């Protein structure tokens, strides 16, 4: 396809700038995002197994009543249905004191009918991976981090469009070609184009939805002022599922939990309930949200139907798969496309692999930038030193990307060792991640990109190998264990560790015997008299 060269030149600059400004942020978003696809198995891998016999919901009514009697001030709580029926957790009510609280309270029923309330200490690795995905680990208020990733995602949309524009003229010639030759830049360019083009629809969906997730507060504020004349809150309230619920706070008797499931089943037999979320329990305003899946529809993480807790009437189905109006269903589809909550295991694995491929896209993008700005010995007619910008980006790429990889692997493996030993496992997870991440960045800065690249790749390989190694040690060491049914976590980590080790070996070879006039060369530029000894080490331009 013919496009004027001045247009291509301009969009190449647009692509370069948007890419370089966002590459490292997006790497962390994508790597952590890929892991969020399997955060429940990761959580279970870290958690010590407890002998739980699959429960029935026969005693759930007593549990709710006894907990209400013991803690009347707790009116919002959740009854996990699916995990209790599957024997993954005991039958219990949980509640948190604030949103995103990693340590919820839990009430369980003893055989004698008494209620025990304790604060749980879960690993919360899923929460960590999710927050890292949303904020790239920027500490402080969630809003700061999500605004940063929202802005980065906006630039990422522009990077995608400009990337396609500059690829169009050579699309037919270069499509699906990977030229592995001495021309390193050509190879990285081919790899970058290949990754970008085959996953373009995925990237467009992710970029646009991430802009919305990151910046929706700001967009809503503007819409309120310019479109809804300051009355947007009223419009939103008129769409709320709770809009018709009474404000009556007087005491009311609620239906038994099983009853809600029966009614949901008759409303929608294909809906698989996961949990019951009570709101204002025991009052005239009491409601129950039955959360669950329906594999036949594009659903936000989970859908729900809102019911009256006292009479079991269906109050709202705007978030219930198959019972939404067109507006709600369309928006739910956008959510589902971002979260990969459709199509079951195949989509989950595809999103995991596409996420990792996305991370690789940003990594190769940075490598391309570095290769394009390379000062060669031949042009300079002598040993060269790479520019400060090139060295800094190389150091940053190595430190941030490998710091994220090594930090996540390390904190996952460490979780299993620390589980049951420390009081605040979730805080330990963050501490270990930050220590590894900042350590890797500092190391890269001190050692330079070439040497740190090799060393941090080995560190990533070792940290990732620690995951299956921990499981193996669980066979012999007391205090550790082999998690049943989670061999997939260990196998994926093993494959990852082998891949990092292979990359480390190839980076090592390149640092020692690759071209000296590269930012990746470990050798110091030698005196001019030695020039010409390795004439073949120059790659083609």
């Amino acid at each position, binding site marked *: 396809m013919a496009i004027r060269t001045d247009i291509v030149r301009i969009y190449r600059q647009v692509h370069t700038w948007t890419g370089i400004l966002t590459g490292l942020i997006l790497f962390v978003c994508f790597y952590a995002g890929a892991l969020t696809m399997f955060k429940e198995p990761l959580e279970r891998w870290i958690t010590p197994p407890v002998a739980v016999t699959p429960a029935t919901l026969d005693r759930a009514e007593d549990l709710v009543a006894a907990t209400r009697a013991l803690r009347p001030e707790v009116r919002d709580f959740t009854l996990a249905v699916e995990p209790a029926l599957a024997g993954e957790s005991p039958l219990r009510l949980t509640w948190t004191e604030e949103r995103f609280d990693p340590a919820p309270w839990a009430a369980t029923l003893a055989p004698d009918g008494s209620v025990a309330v304790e604060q749980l200490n879960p690993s919360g690795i899923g929460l960590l991976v999710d927050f890292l995905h949303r904020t790239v680990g920027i500490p402080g208020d969630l809003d700061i981090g999500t605004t940063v990733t929202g802005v980065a995602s906006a630039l990422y949309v522009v990077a995608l*469009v400009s990337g396609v524009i500059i690829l169009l003229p050579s699309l037919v010639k270069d499509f699906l070609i990977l030229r592995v030759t001495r021309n390193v830049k050509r190879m990285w360019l081919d790899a970058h184009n290949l990754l970008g083009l085959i996953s373009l629809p995925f990237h467009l969906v992710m970029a646009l939805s991430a802009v*919305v997730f990151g910046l929706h507060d700001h967009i809503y504020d503007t*819409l309120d002022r310019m479109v809804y004349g300051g*009355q947007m809150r009223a419009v939103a309230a008129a769409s709320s599922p709770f809009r018709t619920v009474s404000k009556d706070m007087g005491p009311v008797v609620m239906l038994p939990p099983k009853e809600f499931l029966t009614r949901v089943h008759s409303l929608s037999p294909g809906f698989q309930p996961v949990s019951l979320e009570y709101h204002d329990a025991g009052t005239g305003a009491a409601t129950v949200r039955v959360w669950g899946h329906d594999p036949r529809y594009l659903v936000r993480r989970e859908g729900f139907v809102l019911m009256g807790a006292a009479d079991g009437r269906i109050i709202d189905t705007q978030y219930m798969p198959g019972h939404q109006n067109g507006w709600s269903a369309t928006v739910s589809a956008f959510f589902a496309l971002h979260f990969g909550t459709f199509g079951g295991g195949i989509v989950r694995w595809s999103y995991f692999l596409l996420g990792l491929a996305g991370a690789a896209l940003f990594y190769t993008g940075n490598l391309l930038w570095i290769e394009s700005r390379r000062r060669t010995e031949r042009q300079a007619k002598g040993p060269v030193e790479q520019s400060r910008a090139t060295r800094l980006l190389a150091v940053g790429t190595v430190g941030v990307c490998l710091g994220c990889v090594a930090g996540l692997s390390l904190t996952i493996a460490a979780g299993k060792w620390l589980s049951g030993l420390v009081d605040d496992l979730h805080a330990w997870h963050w501490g270990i991640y930050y220590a590894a991440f900042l350590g890797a960045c500092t190391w890269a800065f001190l050692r330079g990109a070439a040497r740190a690249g090799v060393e941090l790749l080995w560190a990533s390989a070792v940290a990732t190998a620690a995951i299956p190694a921990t499981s193996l040690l669980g066979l012999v060491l007391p205090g550790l264990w082999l998690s049943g049914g989670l061999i997939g976590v260990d196998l994926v980590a093993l494959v990852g560790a082998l891949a990092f080790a292979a990359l480390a070996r190839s980076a090592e070879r390149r640092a020692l015997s690759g071209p000296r006039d590269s930012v990746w060369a470990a050798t110091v530029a030698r005196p001019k008299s030695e020039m010409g000894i390795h004439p073949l080490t120059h790659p083609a331009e």
Partner: protein
Amino acid sequence: MAIAPPAATAPAPIRPDWWSKTLAGVILGFLLAVALAGLFAWIGPGGPAAVNKLQLVMWMVAPLWLGVVSVCFLFRSGRQAWLWLGCATVLAHTALLAARSPLLP
């Protein structure tokens, strides 16, 4: 130069004008996207108060806005970008004001 450029046939090359084009795309593009999404809210199907339509209206802003940012570098100059996008934004907001009526009785 021995060979004169074929000025009659080839259009003048596009001026980069990075700052003015980028600002036009980001600022005017956002205002334009808000107005277009707002027009859809008011004169699109269901009217502005349809249940959960607000969420879709908000989602529309992102692709419209970033679409404008993405193509705004095609303008011949930053001046042209401000001129065209400015006119489009004023027009869209005028139409939005005309389409709006009090939401609450």
